[in-house]
């Protein structure tokens, strides 16, 4: 197991001022979420209903996918299936190349991030422009989003001002969000107008109708799609919902959970292409069918990518999204990434205090922190954990199963804290003592007191 995550987190935490700021920004969103949900008496019922709908979806996934395909095809939509990221990317390129399209706009899609679509398009000389403001910012900086809903939450406005000065020609030193947003608006409008194809993610795909639902605040997905000749919607296979009316549950949960808005500004439903244009939907597996096999972790496929677990996470707020070294950061990412690629992400489930706030905030009631706990077991049993670590834990287990040994160890420790000099106790190798003093050691342990006072 590497320790990159631990190192990156430590480095981030050392910048106390930035941590103050990052933590406050995200806590602010969590508070907005609280305000909007606490005004809704049926909130918990909505969560329960959504959770059960999604469980139904996971259980019936193959049938629902076929139903979706049938209905979408009848609507004049071309449906594609991709086993993995590579195949997904090839399908996109092939659609674009068959139409001689070399410029495309893309709205927010964690799936295309997961598939690293942009790199693939660029390799094929296709210009791709992310049109969500936050995504555009990180694209210009050539980095990954640090959050699934707020891609540029890690950046200060001065940093964005600097970036825009360099790439969009805004005034040097200008950092007013209004001014910068306006500059991006103008810049992106030229991109919308010159692109003949648009790629979007999908929030929900309705089996019963064969349509897709896309939620944004900026309207960028719709600007792209409705100006383009070719619209391509990319989705993981778990995004299916059975019925049209299920949207009445999910749209009520999504915006409130994500940002505390009663709904996203734009909720668009695309069923058929405009006359004379093409509409494609790509259904992507990329590890999901394997993930679905694992009973303990299956429920994480319910995720609707609202980001609430990320905003509330006391670790994420102080560690920053990039420290996770994964496409999806935060609590849900610490399940999704290691479940699919344990060799790269084995450390993530351990970077949590298991406080459980994620579980209580999740609109589809994923037992996130319980899965993190189970994933820890899974990782120590199956993947590469340094032998020294296993040895030290075996040693601890031996002490704890032998009460006499345990008592010896305990009284030695107490004796040590009372009698040894500070430097011996608070040596750097003692990770507890590096940050904290030990409690003042009492003369007697509880057991010793009990023997003296309650046994005759």
């Amino acid at each position, binding site marked *: 197991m590497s320790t990159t995550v631990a190192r990156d987190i430590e480095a981030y935490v050392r910048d106390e001022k930035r941590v103050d700021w990052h933590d406050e920004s995200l806590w602010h969103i969590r508070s907005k979420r609280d305000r909007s949900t606490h005004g809704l008496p049926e909130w918990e019922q909505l969560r329960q*209903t959504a959770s*059960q*709908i999604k469980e*139904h979806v*996971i*259980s*019936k*996934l*193959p049938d629902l*996918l*076929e139903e979706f395909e049938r209905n979408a095809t009848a609507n004049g939509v071309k449906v594609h*299936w991709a*086993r993995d990221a590579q195949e997904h990317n090839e399908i996109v390129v092939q659609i674009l190349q068959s139409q001689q399209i070399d410029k495309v706009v893309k709205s927010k899609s964690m799936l295309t991030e997961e598939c690293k679509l942009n790199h693939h398009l660029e390799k094929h000389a296709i210009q791709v422009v992310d049109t969500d*403001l936050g995504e555009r*910012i990180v694209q210009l900086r050539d980095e990954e989003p640090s959050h699934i809903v*707020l891609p*540029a939450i890690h*950046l200060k*406005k001065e940093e*964005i001002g600097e970036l825009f000065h360099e790439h969009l020609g*805004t005034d040097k030193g200008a950092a007013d*969000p209004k001014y910068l*947003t*306006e*500059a991006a608006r*103008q810049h992106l*409008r*030229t991109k919308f*107008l*010159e692109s003949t194809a648009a790629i979007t993610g999908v929030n929900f795909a309705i089996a019963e*109708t064969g*349509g897709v639902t896309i939620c944004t*605040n*900026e*309207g*960028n997905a*719709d*600007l792209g799609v*409705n*100006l383009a000749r070719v619209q391509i919607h990319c989705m993981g296979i778990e995004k299916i919902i059975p*019925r*049209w*009316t299920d*949207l*009445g*549950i999910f749209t*009520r949960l999504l915006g409130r959970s994500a940002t505390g808005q*009663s*709904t996203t*500004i*734009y*909720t*668009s439903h*695309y*069923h058929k292409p*405009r006359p004379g244009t093409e509409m494609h939907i790509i259904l992507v*597996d990329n590890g999901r*069918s*394997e993930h*679905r096999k694992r009973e303990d972790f299956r429920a994480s496929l319910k995720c609707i990518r609202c980001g609430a677990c990320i905003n509330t996470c006391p670790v994420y707020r102080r560690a920053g999204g990039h420290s996770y070294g994964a496409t999806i950061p935060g609590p849900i990412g610490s399940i999704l990434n290691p479940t699919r690629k344990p060799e790269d992400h084995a450390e993530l489930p351990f970077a949590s205090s298991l406080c459980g706030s994620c579980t209580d905030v999740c609109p589809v009631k994923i037992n996130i922190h319980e899965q993190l706990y189970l994933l820890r077991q899974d990782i120590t049993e199956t993947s590469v954990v340094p032998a020294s670590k296993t040895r030290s834990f075996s040693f601890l287990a031996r002490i704890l199963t032998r009460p006499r040994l345990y008592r010896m160890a305990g009284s030695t420790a107490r004796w040590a804290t009372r009698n040894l000099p500070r430097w011996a106790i608070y040596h750097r190798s003692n990770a507890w003592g590096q940050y904290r003093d030990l409690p003042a050691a009492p003369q007697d342990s509880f057991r010793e007191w009990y023997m003296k006072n309650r046994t005759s």
Partner: protein
Amino acid sequence: MSSRSDILARLRGTAVPAVSLPAYPTIPELTQEALVERFRANASAAGSTVISGNLNWSEIISSASPSAHKIYSDGNIDTDKSVMRSFSLPETLSKSHTAELSRTRTSTDNINQPHSVLLDVAVLTSHLAVAENGSIWLTDSVEHRVIPFITEHLIIRLIDYDLVATMADAYDRLDSSLAFCICIAGPSKTADIEQSLVIGAQAARSLTIVLE
């Protein structure tokens, strides 16, 4: 094996215990007055302007955009401004419009002066509104799907409309076979720069809702 059958076979190869679909929660009904009050409050909170009563269309349009000259309406409105009743998008938007747009970008002074590309104001009709979030719904009867997004300012007339309490009620009423429909809950916005709310991100800069 095709990817399709491969994926389906893999999914079918895993037995997952069946879970039935749940019933929807029932939500207490509200009176019409309460609905209207909620609608107004939530629309304003989302940054929309709601107006009703004696309507002066010249004023409504001017207050959305004082310098509007490219105005489109899908219905008859009584105004002293010249209004397009039909709107054709050029086959290829790209070259000329991009050029027009980039001219406005040569000087940064102009960034704060919205330049007219395509439409300044669009006036569209809706028949469905939702109280819990102050949103309105548009369907495929919109002449071009892009109008509500590309226009600088959007005015929605609610005529003969249903005002429902929640999104759940809205989906109940809507025809699921519509080729396209959209729920709009305010002007385009973003908070992607340091969480500061900016109205007018990429699509319409303002949303005026007119109750008729």
